[in-house]
């Protein structure tokens, strides 16, 4: 895969991967930063011709979500650096999006990642297993279990107070 085809693939995958990162709980600014970093790595990867990136969405998602985790650790250690960053205003998510993000956030990280990979990115069981470093059987079982949990919680949500979009990061 050469540099220009990676760039094209990255551009076309951008909206879907960005939404997947936000669904994982990233703030808009962090999601944009992480994705930008993943783009750069993809281009370097292609330039070095180390290997073909079969599913750019999955590749970008994995690299960007790892960077997000690193960023969260840094934010914990260096709080004031995060404080001084002037975040650009982002459009608030829709009510459904806020509900989805809030309910995903309540799930364990692995379940959240599997659901986002399957439902938001549209990856297959095998692609998800490869991307997240899990067995295919584990992905299948996690999908069924986490789907049921998420579905129940979303169905119950209108009876509870809806989450405040301002609190969804």
């Amino acid at each position, binding site marked *: 895969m050469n540099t220009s085809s990676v760039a094209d693939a990255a551009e076309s995958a951008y909206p879907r991967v960005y939404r997947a990162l936000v669904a994982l709980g990233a703030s808009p600014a962090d999601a944009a930063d992480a994705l930008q970093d993943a783009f750069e790595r993809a281009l370097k990867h292609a330039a070095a011709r180390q290997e073909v990136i079969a599913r750019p969405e999955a590749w970008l998602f994995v690299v960007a979500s790892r960077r997000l985790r690193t960023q969260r650790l840094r934010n914990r250690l260096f709080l*004031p650096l995060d404080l001084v960053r002037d975040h650009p205003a982002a459009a608030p998510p829709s009510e459904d999006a806020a509900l989805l993000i809030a309910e995903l956030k309540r799930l364990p990280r692995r379940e959240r990642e599997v659901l986002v990979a399957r439902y938001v990115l549209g990856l297959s069981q095998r692609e998800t297993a490869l991307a997240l470093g899990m067995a295919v059987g584990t992905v299948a079982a996690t999908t069924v279990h986490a789907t049921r949990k998420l579905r129940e919680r979303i169905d119950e949500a209108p009876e509870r107070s809806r989450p405040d979009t301002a609190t969804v990061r």
Partner: protein
Amino acid sequence: MRHLNDLDPTLQQFVDRATSGIAVPPPRRAAATLAGRRRAPVAAMIVAALAAVLLVTSGAAAATGLLSEVIRSRLDALPNSAVFYSGVSAVGSQATTLDGARVARLPLPRSGQLTGGWEVRAVQLTMTEAWRSVELQYRRSIPTGVSGSRGQMSVGVWSEGITVVPTTDSTELATISGLPVTIGSTPGYRTGPGYRTARFTYQGATVIIRGYADEFGTADLSSLVEAWLAQTR
């Protein structure tokens, strides 16, 4: 071949609808332009930074004959004090005194002492065209019998014009001296201790008092907020 038959179609519809409600900003740079960028190797940057720090430190020590003082001040340095403003040094951040920081026209205490034996040890002033901030580092003698006590805390005061993003894991609301105050907590992490913050708005400024969780209970933070307000009013 994609295997979608194990997905819940109703949930899939909801997810599709929900994610379409997440606004996607345009990429900050065209991806193609990134190909030509070259980043210096991380190891080389670290070595260069260490060499620069060593050069400056040893040069200053040799010039002033204060090598022992340099070492002592390093031992005494507060955690994070070196990194608090490293991200904004280009916009005019400088160490100053409490009185020197009053040019920022922010609500600051009248004296360097706060109830509880706290004494201001370092003041950092940041001025930009859009906003101003003052960071006060406090120390006190470590109280005996308090496990994990460090005798350190900080207070940040931010003007309007900057978004101060809360980063604590959990928050609760309290009213202290008639002001709504958000008490935030972040549990200890493998690589660092937990901390608590008290965040409130006073005279148009955002004030955040931050201390280590094993030294500051909610009551301690409340006392500090009261002391701060009494000193500032």
